[in-house]
């Protein structure tokens, strides 16, 4: 018997699932939503996206290699995904140096300072976005207006988004649902085009990368909450469907809130988390001073996630009721 044998504990086979597989499937799911801003906002969207991804990858590599002195982790695809999601939350006419700062905050502060993938408490891309929103409110809130086959690079005309229209109270100026669905509205580059985001979300559901619990609980909560407000006062509050398909809600519900690392692990906990995000989002949108609240809502619920994980236990097999 010449062969040297491996000896290890069972199981001896593995599903073949890997972090990079999951990351790349999310990246693929985001591609339809990337084509929408290319059509309506022009090449600026691609430029912002490329710079965001490149700087996220470079920062992850440099910090991992020289500060944490760990093996390079960029091949798992998570830095690319963070870069992509950060770009989706930025206006397509944002000066590129601001994009680089956002990437540094997302990767350096929100992810690597906690110890890299898996250890961060808050969604890195959202931390980057919120940091930029607070630091550069002017640049971060002058969204370009959509224009089919947009040839302009960075200097398109800017204007109101559906959510700022809601905030101003001129509900009659809201774009119709069809425009909201295809993305013919102002906004951050990846959040317009609800239909493309839904297609990506369905892909992730079918591939079992995400489950329905988080996105559906967020969307249903927002629908019910804004629906109640609408019934209470149709003059003041926008209809629930406009809420669902405008702003960062669809992007947040499908792609940001479902980030594994920062969301609860047990299904029951995921429902609580989703309902929390929905309620906070509507509160900020309707009663707060910002027009949009999805980012803040997700970050707040990210903070509560460890607590949810500690209290929401899966249904145990053969649980004996305590007397």
């Amino acid at each position, binding site marked *: *018997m010449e*062969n*040297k*044998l*491996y*000896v*290890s*504990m*069972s*199981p*001896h*086979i*593995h*599903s073949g*699932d*890997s*972090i990079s*597989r*999951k990351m790349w499937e999310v990246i693929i799911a985001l591609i339809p939503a990337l084509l929408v801003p290319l059509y309506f906002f022009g090449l600026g969207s691609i430029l912002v996206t490329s710079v965001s991804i490149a700087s996220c990858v470079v920062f992850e590599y440099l910090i991992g290699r020289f500060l944490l002195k760990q093996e390079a982790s960029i091949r*798992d695809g998570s830095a690319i995904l963070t870069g992509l999601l950060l770009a989706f939350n930025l206006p397509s006419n944002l000066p590129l140096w601001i994009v680089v700062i956002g990437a540094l905050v997302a990767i350096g502060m929100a992810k690597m300072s906690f*110890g*890299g*993938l*898996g*250890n961060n408490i808050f969604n890195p891309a959202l931390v980057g976005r919120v940091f930029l929103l607070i630091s550069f409110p002017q640049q971060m809130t002058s969204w370009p207006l959509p224009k089919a086959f947009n040839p302009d690079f960075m200097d398109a005309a800017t204007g109101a988004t559906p959510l700022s229209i809601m905030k101003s109270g001129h509900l009659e100026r809201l774009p119709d649902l069809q425009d909201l669905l295809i993305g013919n509205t102002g906004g951050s580059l990846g959040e317009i085009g609800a239909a493309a985001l839904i297609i990506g979300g369905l892909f992730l559901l079918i591939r079992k990368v995400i489950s329905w619990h988080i996105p559906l609980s967020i969307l249903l909560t927002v629908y019910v909450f804004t629906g109640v407000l609408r019934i209470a006062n149709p003059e003041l509050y926008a209809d629930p469907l406009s809420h669902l398909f405008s702003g960062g809600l669809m992007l947040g519900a499908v792609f940001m809130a479902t980030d*594994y*690392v920062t*969301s609860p*692990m*047990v299904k029951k906990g995921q429902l609580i988390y989703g309902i929390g995000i929905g309620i906070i989002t509507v509160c900020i949108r309707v009663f707060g001073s910002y027009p949009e609240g999805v980012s803040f809502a997700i970050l707040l619920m990210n903070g509560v996630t460890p607590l949810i994980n500690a209290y929401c*236990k*899966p*249904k*145990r*097999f*053969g*649980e*004996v009721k305590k007397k």
Partner: protein
Amino acid sequence: MGGIHPPENKISAGKAIEQIPLPGQVTILLNQHLGAPAIPLVQRGDRVKTGQLIAKAAGYVSANIHSSVTGKVLKLDEVFDPGGYRRQAVIIEVEPDEWAEDIILSTTLKRDCTLSPEEIIQKIQEGGVVGMGGASFPTHVKLNPPPGSKPEVLIVNAVECEPYLTSDHQLMLEKGMEIIVGTKIMMMALKVNRAVIAIENNKPDAISLLERLAIPYSQIEIMSLAVHYPQGGEKQLIEAVLDRRVPSGALPVVTGAVVLNVGSVFATYEAVQKNKPVIDRVVCVTGKSIKKPGNYLCRIGTSVQELIDFAGGMPDTAAKVISGGPMMGKALVNSQIPVSKGTSGILLMDSKEAPRQKVYNCIRCGNCIDACPMGLEPYLLMNLSELSEWENMEKERIMDCIECGCCSYVCPSNRPLLDHLRVGKFKVGAMIRGRKNQ
């Protein structure tokens, strides 16, 4: 709830049972069952016959061991067992068979059994019958449920949910009638009037055959189950068949069900109707690189190497030899380890499949929680195990873990979850026993 669907890879399915020639020497372990090792009754130089008792059960939870061959006892020595521990074994030099007196060698079916329940259980106990699916729990203990519990139904576990393994499947195809009679005998021993033979629906030939054979036995039902790992686990099977859940910490019999492996049912038939103790069994030898995968009937104590040689020899690429299936089997430390009563299969993995992959951080995807058939949180238990927080592990119900391996199987970060859970289960188990002894 929970569970996984690994690729079935039943390469050796449908291969007729083939008897392998007598080896030159057999190594019969004294701890082929759960419980105390048997006490040897023979010494160096003794001559033994095939089927002769060579070690007797040490107490109630233990099992008799019989010589699987005729020959001279070379020595009593410590050898590696499938778990990698050194254990006592009787090593016998093999001569042509000379069978112990009362063993009936004819293979004609003996349908009728007029023994009382006590006599049946005694014969099973004398024959050294244990769970043949891998855990090797002595069968007579299961047939004697503790006072106060009332068995209502016998479940015959013919699920064989582990990938690759086919020995039970083939046994049902070739010994179907014996299994039906064995089931009837076990029902008599348990004094129940209902039995369910549970088979996964990836074995339609076995299902239809047993359904046909069971027609005269109205109390025996053949149940076809959807393929699902770990459905062959005792608690999972009771839930699948009866829709009853064994409460945490309780014995399965509180649900009214007694679960026995189909291999043990066949062994029971042989022990009761033919006076033949457990001296051989069907072992499936399988793997992607093996030349002649198949189901081989071999004597207990035959070395794994001998089986592999018969199946075409050890492939050059072989890098792991597993006793049992890929989910719960044990990786052997060498190929000289003997076949024991619980060896359901020998699986060879080549150098591509054998090594473990690089471990990454937990990304809290929750796959392990979704896969756990017991509703535990493997990621949390692993963290607690790494921190040596045994008390908290007990609170998180580590003792419910059935070690099925679903958590490690699904982890995208290749984290060795079950390894850490086993450490915790061992420590917490010792802690609980210590508390009871105080």
